[in-house]
C-alpha cells in the first residue's frame, strides 16, 4: 500500500504555524511562566519536530530538536526560563517560521541564519546551568539515540545468514503489556522460514493455572537470509519482559545456499538502503508544488460547515415545495396561494440564514491580526528604549477573512506610530508624573453593524501647534479657528509626518494617509481623538463583511440608490421653517439647533426629481467621516441587504458611488458613498 503523505502537508503547515503563534504568545508573556505554559511551549515545539520529520521536512525537524531539548530542560526544572532563553526561543520560532514558509512556498530558507540560531541554542545547551550533573544528559541522550536507531555493532558488519535458533522465555506478565507471542512469531515468519516448538514444562496443574499469565516458552528455528538485528527488532518491545537467546546455527548447509539463493539476498540488501532514504526525498521534492497551491486555504470549525449543510438541505426542501406549487400554477386556488406564500416565507428565511452561515465561514477572530502585536511591541519598544505594556481586549471578535488581511498593514502602522511618536521615553514620562511604562490598548468589538477597533495609548498626544505649523509649512489649507477634530484630520493628509526626526521605525514616507486609504478601501472609517499629555485614540470602524451591505433604498425621480444603513442617522420630512440658506454654506436644514448642509441628490447626479422642494420629499441625515449631511431624496423605499458588486472592476471609479447592486426586479442600483458624496457636494458648491 502506498499513501501519498503530501496530502497532509497543508494541515501540518497550518498546525505548525498555529503552534509557532502559540509559542510566541506564551514566550511574550510579561509574567513568569507557570509549568503548564512552559509545557504548552514544549509541546508545540515537540509536535513540530515530530510531524516535520514525518512529512519530509527534516531540516525543520533537525533544527527544532535543539529548541525542544532546551525547553525540555526548562520543563523538567533543570533550567530556569531566563530572559535569554525566552529571547533565544523567540528567535528559534522565527527561524522555524521562515523554514516552514520557505517550505510552503517552495523557496529556500537562509541556512546561515538557521545555523547561527542553532549554534546559539547549542551553546546554551552546553553552558552550565542550575543543576550540575545534568549537563551530561544531552550527549548521553544523543548516544542512546544512535544506539536506538538500530545501528548496532552486529549490523555494521555483514552478519552470517541463518539458520538461527531462538530461545524465548517470556515472563509471566508479558501478556499484560498487550504483547502477544503469536504476533512476534508472525513477524518472524515474514523474515524467513520459522519453525516453532513450544515448551510446556513450566505449566502448573490445570487448577493452579492463571489464564492471564504467560507460562509457556518457545524454541524457534528461523531459516533464511535474516540478520540478527532483524530478529532482535521483533522482540524489541518485550526485551525487558523475557529472556532471549539468539544463536547462529553455524554455516548453512550447502543445499540451502544455492546459487540463486545466494545472489537473491544481495539484491534486497543493496536495494533496501536506496529505497528507504530515497522514498523521502521524492516526497519532499514532489510536495512543494501542491503546498503552494493551497496557500489560500482557510480552516473552518466543523460546526459551521455542518450548519451550512443543514441550511442547504432546508433550502432544497423549500425549493421543491415551491416547485410543486409552480407546476400546478394553472389551477391555483386560494389554498395554493396560501401555500405558495408560506413557501416563499420559508425560502426567504432559509436564504437569509444560509447567507449568514456562509458568511460566518469567512469569519475569523481578529486575534489573527492582534496576535502579532505583542511581538511588534516588544521588539519596537526594545529598539526605542521605551517601556510599553500592551493590553488586548476583544481579540475573539470575528470579522471577514478578507478584511483581516487588509487590516494587518494599517493596524501595524498605527501601532508602530503609537509607540514611536505617542508613548514617551521613560524619562519624559517620569518628568510628566506618569508611570515609566506606557500602556497601549488594542480593543476590538461590535457596535451595531460595525466592527470597531481602537488603538489607544497614554502617551503625549497630538500637538495642535506642531501639526498646524507643519501643515502651513507644507502649504496645506488650514481653516481659521479650526476645531481639534479638523486639525487631527490633517494627520491623514498625504505626505504629512510630525516626527521631528525620521526614525527607522516610522516616518518612512508612508504616512497615515496610506493607512486611511487602506481603511477606506474596505468601507471603513478612521477617527482620531487626542488630548495633549494624556494620549491618543484611533478608532477604526469597519463593516462586518465586504460582500454584503445593509442598505436603505431611496428613490430620486426614476432612479433608485442604496444608502449604507450604518451611515444613516435619521430620516425626516422637513418643515419649511427648518430650511434655511446660510451664506457660504448654501442651504441647510436646522435640526435640534444644528445646521446640516442640504445635499439634493438629483442635483449631484443630475437626474430629474419628482419633488423640487425639500419639504415635499424626504431628507436623510447621514454621518460621514468629516461631517453630517442631509440628503434630499424623493422617497424612502425599503431596507434591504444588498450584495455589493464592484463598479471599479467592471467600469471605473465614480465619485459619490462605492459600488452597485442588482435589485430584486433586476435593475441596477448604485450604492452611495456618503463620505465622498459630502465632499462632492462641497466641491459643487
Amino acid at each position, binding site marked *: *500500500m*502506498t*499513501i501519498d*503523505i503530501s*496530502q*497532509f*502537508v497543508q*494541515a*501540518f503547515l*497550518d*498546525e505548525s504555524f498555529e503552534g509557532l503563534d502559540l509559542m510566541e504568545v506564551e514566550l511574550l508573556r510579561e509574567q513568569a511562566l507557570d509549568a503548564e505554559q512552559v509545557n*504548552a511551549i*514544549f*509541546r508545540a515545539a*515537540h*509536535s513540530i*519536530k*515530530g*510531524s*516535520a*520529520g*514525518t*512529512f519530509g521536512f*527534516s531540516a525543520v*525537524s533537525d533544527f527544532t*530538536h535543539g529548541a*525542544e*531539548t532546551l525547553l525540555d530542560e526548562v520543563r523538567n526544572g533543570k533550567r530556569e526560563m531566563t530572559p535569554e532563553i525566552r529571547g533565544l526561543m523567540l528567535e528559534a520560532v522565527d527561524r522555524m517560521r521562515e523554514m516552514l514558509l520557505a517550505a510552503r512556498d517552495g523557496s529556500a530558507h537562509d541556512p546561515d541564519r538557521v545555523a547561527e540560531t542553532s549554534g546559539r541554542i547549542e551553546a546554551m545547551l552546553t553552558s552550565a546551568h542550575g543543576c550540575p550533573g545534568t549537563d551530561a544528559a544531552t550527549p548521553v*541522550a*544523543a548516544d*542512546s*539515540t544512535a544506539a*536506538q*536507531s538500530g545501528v548496532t555493532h552486529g549490523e555494521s558488519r555483514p552478519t552470517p545468514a541463518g539458520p538461527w535458533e531462538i530461545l524465548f522465555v517470556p515472563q509471566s506478565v508479558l*501478556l*499484560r*503489556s*498487550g*504483547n*502477544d507471542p*503469536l*504476533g*512476534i512469531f*508472525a*513477524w518472524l515468519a515474514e523474515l524467513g522460514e520459522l519453525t516453532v516448538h513450544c515448551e510446556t514444562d513450566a505449566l502448573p496443574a490445570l487448577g493452579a493455572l492463571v489464564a*492471564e499469565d504467560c507460562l509457556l516458552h518457545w524454541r524457534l528455528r528461523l531459516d533464511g537470509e535474516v540478520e540478527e538485528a532483524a530478529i532482535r527488532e*521483533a522482540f*524489541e*518491545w518485550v526485551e*525487558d519482559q523475557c529472556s532471549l537467546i539468539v544463536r547462529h546455527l553455524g554455516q548453512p548447509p550447502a543445499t540451502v545456499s544455492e546459487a540463486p539463493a545466494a545472489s537473491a539476498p544481495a539484491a534486497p540488501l543493496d536495494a533496501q538502503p536506496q529505497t528507504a532514504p530515497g*522514498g*523521502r526525498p521524492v516526497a519532499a521534492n514532489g510536495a512543494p508544488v501542491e503546498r503552494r497551491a493551497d496557500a489560500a486555504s482557510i480552516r473552518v470549525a466543523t460546526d459551521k460547515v455542518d450548519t451550512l449543510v443543514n441550511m442547504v438541505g432546508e433550502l432544497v426542501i423549500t425549493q421543491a415545495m415551491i416547485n410543486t406549487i409552480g407546476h400546478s400554477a394553472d389551477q391555483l386556488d386560494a389554498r395554493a396561494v396560501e401555500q405558495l406564500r408560506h413557501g416563499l416565507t420559508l425560502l426567504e428565511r432559509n436564504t437569509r440564514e444560509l447567507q449568514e452561515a456562509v458568511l460566518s465561514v469567512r469569519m475569523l477572530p481578529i486575534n489573527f491580526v492582534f496576535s502579532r502585536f505583542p511581538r511588534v511591541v516588544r521588539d519596537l519598544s526594545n529598539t526605542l528604549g521605551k517601556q510599553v505594556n500592551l493590553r488586548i481586549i476583544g481579540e475573539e471578535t470575528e470579522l471577514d477573512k478578507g478584511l483581516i488581511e487588509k487590516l494587518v498593514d494599517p493596524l501595524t502602522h498605527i501601532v508602530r506610530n503609537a509607540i514611536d511618536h505617542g508613548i514617551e521615553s521613560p524619562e519624559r514620562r517620569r518628568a510628566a508624573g506618569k508611570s515609566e511604562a506606557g500602556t497601549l490598548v488594542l480593543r476590538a468589538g461590535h457596535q451595531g453593524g460595525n466592527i470597531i477597533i481602537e488603538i489607544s495609548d497614554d502617551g503625549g498626544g497630538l500637538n495642535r501647534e506642531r501639526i498646524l505649523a507643519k501643515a502651513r509649512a507644507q502649504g496645506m489649507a488650514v481653516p481659521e479657528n479650526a476645531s481639534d477634530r479638523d486639525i487631527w484630520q490633517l494627520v491623514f493628509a498625504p505626505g504629512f509626518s510630525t516626527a521631528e526626526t525620521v526614525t527607522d521605525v516610522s516616518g518612512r514616507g508612508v504616512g497615515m494617509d496610506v493607512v486611511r486609504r487602506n481603511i477606506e478601501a474596505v468601507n471603513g472609517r478612521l477617527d482620531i481623538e487626542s488630548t495633549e499629555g494624556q494620549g491618543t485614540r484611533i478608532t477604526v470602524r469597519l463593516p462586518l463583511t465586504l460582500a454584503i451591505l445593509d442598505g436603505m433604498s431611496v428613490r430620486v425621480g426614476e432612479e433608485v440608490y442604496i444608502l449604507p444603513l450604518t451611515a444613516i442617522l435619521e430620516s425626516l420630512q422637513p418643515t419649511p421653517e427648518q430650511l434655511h440658506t446660510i451664506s457660504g454654506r448654501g442651504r441647510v436644514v436646522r435640526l435640534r439647533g444644528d445646521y446640516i448642509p442640504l445635499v439634493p441628490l438629483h442635483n449631484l447626479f443630475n437626474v430629474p426629481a419628482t419633488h423640487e422642494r425639500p419639504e415635499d420629499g424626504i431628507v436623510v441625515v447621514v454621518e460621514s467621516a468629516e461631517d453630517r449631511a442631509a440628503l434630499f431624496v424623493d422617497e424612502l423605499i425599503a431596507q434591504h441587504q444588498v450584495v455589493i458588486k464592484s463598479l471599479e472592476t467592471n467600469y471605473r471609479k465614480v465619485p459619490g458611488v462605492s459600488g452597485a447592486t442588482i435589485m430584486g426586479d433586476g435593475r441596477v442600483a448604485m450604492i452611495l458613498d456618503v463620505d465622498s458624496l459630502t465632499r462632492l457636494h462641497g466641491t459643487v458648491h
Partner: protein
Amino acid sequence: MATILAVDDSASLRQMVVFTLKEAGHDVIEAADGVAGLEAAKSKPADLVISDINMPHMDGITLVRELRGLPDYKFTPILLLTTESSDEKKQEGKAAGATGWLVKPFDPEKLMSTIKRVLG
C-alpha cells in the same frame, strides 16, 4: 479488520494515521488528547490503541496507565508514538503498560508493518 483508536493532538499526524489505517480497511476512532482518548476507549472497545505521548490535558503515558486499569483493555495492544530522543519515555511507557512504540518520524508503510506485529 480491527477497531483502532488513534490519539494525537497534532491534527496532521492524526489525519495521516487515520487515513492510512482506513485505507487498510480498519475502523478508526480519533481523539485529540488523553482525556478524549480515554472517553472514546470507554464508549467503544478498541482492538488497538495508538497514542502520542505529549498531549495537553492527559499525556499518553497516563492514558496507557488509565487504559490498563480498565477490564476491557487488560490485554489490548497500546502503541506509543515517540521521538527518537525519548528512550526514557519508551521505558516509562513500558512501565505504564504500553505494548510497544512507533518512532517518529514514520511513514504509512512503517505504521502498517508495525501494527501488523500486534494485530497479526
